[in-house]
C-alpha cells in the first residue's frame, strides 16, 4: 500500500470477492432456470394478462427471450439494488467512516491534498464497482452459454455497464456526502432516500400518465429503460455519468475547507 487508492482497494480484499461471487452466483442460478421457463408454453398468455405498466417496469414483454428473462428477473430490480447497497456502503465508509474512526487525520496530515484524497477514493470506489460489474458480465456470458439464453457479448456489456453506472452514481454521492458532513449515517441515509425516490419515479412514471414525462429524470430509467441487456448503448447513459462528476467537482473545494473530525 503506497497511497490512498491502493489502501481503499486493500480494504476490500475480503469484501469485494464475496460480493462479486455473490452476484455471479445469483446470475448463474437465474440463468439455470431459463430452460424450464422457456418450455412453459403458457407463459406468454399469462404475461399478456398482466397490467401494461407492470410489464413495462419489469420489461416483461420480452420475457420469452433469454435476455428478456434476465432483464425481468434480475437486471431491473435485484441486481441494481445489490449494486446500490454495495456502492452506497463503500462510498459512505471511505471518507466519513475513516473520519468517524479517527484515522482520516493521519492520512491528511501528510503532503497529500484533500483533492487527491477524495479523487483517489472515488477512483477506488469506481474500480470496485466495475469489478462487480465484470463479475455480472462474466456470469451472464457463462450462464447464457451454458443454458442457451442467447445473450450477445454486446448486450451483456451494456447490461453490466448499466448496473455499474447506477452504482457509481449513488456510490459517489455517498462518498461526497460523507466528505461534506463527516457523518457515515447521513452518507448512507441520504443517497438511500434518493434511490427510493428515483425508483418511485421510475415505477410511477410507468403507471401514471402525468408522470411519464418526468420518468426520464430517474437514474433507474436512464440505466434500465433499454433493457438493460440490449446490444445498443443508450444515450441516456450519459446522464448517469454527469451527476457524480458534478457532485465531486462541487464537493472538492467545500470539503477542503471543512473541520475534520468534529462530527464525531
Amino acid at each position, binding site marked *: 500500500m503506497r497511497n490512498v487508492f491502493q489502501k481503499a482497494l486493500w480494504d476490500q480484499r475480503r469484501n469485494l470477492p464475496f460480493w462479486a461471487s455473490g452476484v455471479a452466483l445469483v446470475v448463474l442460478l437465474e440463468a439455470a432456470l431459463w430452460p424450464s421457463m422457456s418450455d412453459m408454453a403458457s407463459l406468454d398468455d399469462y404475461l399478456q394478462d398482466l397490467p401494461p405498466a407492470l410489464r413495462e417496469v419489469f420489461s416483461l414483454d420480452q420475457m420469452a427471450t433469454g435476455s428478456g428473462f434476465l432483464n425481468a428477473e434480475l437486471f431491473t430490480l435485484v441486481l441494481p439494488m445489490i449494486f446500490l447497497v454495495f456502492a452506497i456502503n463503500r462510498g459512505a465508509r471511505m471518507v466519513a467512516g475513516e473520519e468517524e474512526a*479517527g484515522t482520516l*487525520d493521519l492520512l491528511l496530515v501528510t*503532503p497529500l491534498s484533500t483533492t487527491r484524497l477524495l479523487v483517489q477514493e472515488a477512483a477506488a470506489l469506481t474500480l470496485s464497482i466495475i469489478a462487480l460489474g465484470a463479475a455480472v458480465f462474466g456470469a451472464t456470458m457463462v450462464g447464457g452459454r451454458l443454458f442457451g439464453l442467447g445473450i450477445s457479448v454486446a448486450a451483456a456489456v451494456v447490461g453490466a455497464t448499466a448496473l455499474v453506472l447506477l452504482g457509481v452514481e449513488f456510490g459517489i454521492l455517498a462518498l461526497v456526502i460523507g466528505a461534506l458532513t463527516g457523518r457515515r449515517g447521513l452518507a448512507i441515509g441520504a443517497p438511500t432516500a434518493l434511490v427510493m425516490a428515483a425508483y418511485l419515479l421510475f415505477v410511477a412514471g410507468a403507471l401514471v400518465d402525468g408522470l411519464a414525462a418526468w420518468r426520464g429524470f430517474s437514474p433507474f430509467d436512464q440505466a434500465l429503460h433499454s433493457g438493460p441487456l440490449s446490444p445498443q448503448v443508450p444515450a441516456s447513459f450519459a446522464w448517469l455519468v454527469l451527476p457524480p462528476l458534478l457532485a465531486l467537482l462541487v464537493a472538492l473545494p467545500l470539503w477542503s475547507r471543512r473541520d475534520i473530525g468534529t462530527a464525531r
Partner: protein
Amino acid sequence: MDKTPAIATHGLTKDFGKRRAVHVLDLVVPPGIVFGYLGPNGAGKTTTIKLLAGLYRPTAGQALVFGHEVTSDRDRVQGMIGYLPGDFTGYADQTGGQFLHLIGSLRGGVNPARVLQLAERFEVDLGRRLGTLSHGNRQKIGIIQAFMNQPPLLVLDEPTQGLDPLMQREFLALVREVRAQGQTVLLSSHVLAEVEAVADQIGILKDGRLLTTLTMEELHAGARRSIDLTFERSVPEADLRRTTGVKDVQVHDRTAHLSVTGSTADLLRVAAPHGIVRLVTHETDLADTFLDFYENGWEDSDAQRLSEGAVGPTPQPSVLG
C-alpha cells in the same frame, strides 16, 4: 539556523457554534526547542493542535508553521509536521509494518532502517495487526509514525498516555535527541511532570486562553517555597504578613511557618532586623505551583505575576437567552 518561529499564531480563534474553544491565541514557539503545551482537560489544547495541523480552519486569526500559513499553504505545512493525535488508533486490520509503510509513502517515503530502529527501541512487534495490540503498544506505533521521517516540527497530543514508565523515559530520550538534531517539538499534556523533564518552555492554557508562556527557569523562579524562620525573641507576625509574596503565615512559639512565591529578598529584608536564629526552606514540588494555575487561573495573583502583563480581555459574562 533559520530564526523563523516553528509556530506562530496571531489572534488564533476557534468557535464551535457558540462555544469558543480557542480564544485569540498568540503563541510563538521558537525553532529547535521542546515546548510543553499544558492545560486541564477541555482547555483547548487539542483544538490548537488540530488548527496547527490544518485539520480545523480558524474562525479568526491565523497560524503559521515555519512562516507558512496553515490554511492557505496547508499541504506544505502538513508535510512538515509529524503529528500524533490524542486518540491514535490506526487501522485495526493493518499490521504495524503495513500502516507505517502507508503513512511513510504518503509523506514521500521513509527510511525503513529508521522505522526498524524505532520499533526495536520501543519494543513493538511490527508484524502484529494494530487491532490485536494493547493500548500502550498501539500508542508506540503512533509515536513511531510521528517521528519516523524526521519532520522539522513534531506536534504530539498527549503522547505518553498508555506508556509504561520505562517507555515514557524512552520517549523523553527520543524527544531530547530530535531536539539535538534541530527539530522542534510541541508536546501537549495535562500533567506538568510529563513535560517538566524535557520542555524548554511551557505555555499554560485555560478555557481557550493562553495564561502565560514561561521558560523552565521562570517557572522554577515562580515556584512557591515554604520557609520556617526561627527568631531570637518574638515573631514579627504583622510585618511578615505585609511582605510581598508571603502567604500562609503560621506562628508556633518563636518560629514562623510561611510560604513565599518568587524571590525571598523582601522577606529577608523584613525579617533580618528581628534576628533570625534558624532558616529552613523546603522547595515545594513544581506541581503545586502548577496546580495553583489550574485552580485559580487568571484570577490568582501568582499567576498574574508569572504572566508578566495582560494576556487577554477578561471573560465576557454570558448573555442570557
